[in-house]
């Protein structure tokens, strides 16, 4: 792997970590995974760094969290995360970033709507498909209950999809050598 890829992997892992500095929005008395800006990092990693670099960037991030660095919003970190309700979502991040990058590489001329749809697929559908069963398993919940709970997160995630699309399109235009 060339040096530029290594630096980009480190950069997008750091970006996801830095986005934890935005205060998370917790609701239901902190009982559920918080709404954080961090999934924006996942979407941008896929959309700007591409499938391989973006996926590896988030894999690196997950490893750093697992070894105990408090890089998740609210200063959370350590293996305990994966035993908790948000564990599956965090583990889904590398796959989400990879899927977004992979689909966008196949649609380089995608317009705003198509790009937003791709980011929404990777950043919402793929992420929930892994995170929700994980949450149901950890908390011993019926799957339907877990799905109902997660519906509350969709509006926030849609806002992030639109933001990520705006930013990714602008950056690609301003930085064509990406």
């Amino acid at each position, binding site marked *: *792997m060339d*040096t*530029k890829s*290594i*630096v*980009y*992997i*480190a*950069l997008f*892992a*750091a*970006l996801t*970590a*830095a986005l934890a*500095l935005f205060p998370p929005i917790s609701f*239901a*008395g*902190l*009982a*559920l995974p918080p709404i954080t800006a961090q999934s924006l990092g996942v979407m*941008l990693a896929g959309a*700007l760094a591409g499938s391989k670099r973006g996926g590896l960037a988030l894999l*690196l*991030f997950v*490893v*750093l969290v697992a*070894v*105990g*660095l*408090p*890089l998740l919003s*609210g200063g*959370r*970190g*350590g*293996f*305990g*995360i*994966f*035993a*908790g*309700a948000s564990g599956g979502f965090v583990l889904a991040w590398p796959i989400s970033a990879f899927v977004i990058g992979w689909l966008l590489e196949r649609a380089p001329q995608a317009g705003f709507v198509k790009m937003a749809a791709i980011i929404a697929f990777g950043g919402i559908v793929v992420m929930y498909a892994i995170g929700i069963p994980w949450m149901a398993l*950890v*908390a*011993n*919940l*019926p799957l339907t*209950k877990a799905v109902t709970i997660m519906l509350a997160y969709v509006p926030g995630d849609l806002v992030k999809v639109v*933001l990520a699309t*705006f*930013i990714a399109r*602008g*950056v690609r235009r*301003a*930085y064509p*050598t*990406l």
Partner: protein
Amino acid sequence: MLDLYSPGHSPIHKLSPGVKILAMMVGGTGLFLVENLGIVAVALAAVIALYKIAGLSATQVWNQIRPVLWILIFFLGLQWWLAGASVAVFVVLRLATLLLLAGLVTLTTRASDMIESLTSGLRFLRPLGVNPAKVGLAISLALRFIPVLAQITTEVREAQKARGMEHSIVAVAMPVAIRMLKMADDISDAIDARGYRP
């Protein structure tokens, strides 16, 4: 460095990180295989005893649980309603045990030791094309980039404030993204210019 490590000289601190991680994975999987309240209660007591052996205080045990206390109470209520009291207590105790076990590894192992054993553990992945030195470089770069990104964001925010644009997310995010990509390209050129060939 930002770290959750709690210094000490106990036998648990001295165990190698790899052994601790393996033990935790085995213990965690075991807990998911048993469906017995008694065994989970014993496991919880054993994990708390390990905290004692590691010289960690009751406050530190509590600190592991406190951030997720509401999650535990929520699950307790939900399970009680869905499946009855004994299942609810079982699920919550199992979750608490897993969290405490993971917290114990994090508290007794330096992040740098964990990263080091991780990088050397990656030697086995060499045949798959993974270069441990490059992974190490990526880890150090990522840790260095976090404060740099925060710094760039502050600077861009101030610049946009002068234009009355500090509340526009796109007006802040776009220059930050472009500056960080430029920085990444410069760093990658600088590394190559020094003949870095791991």
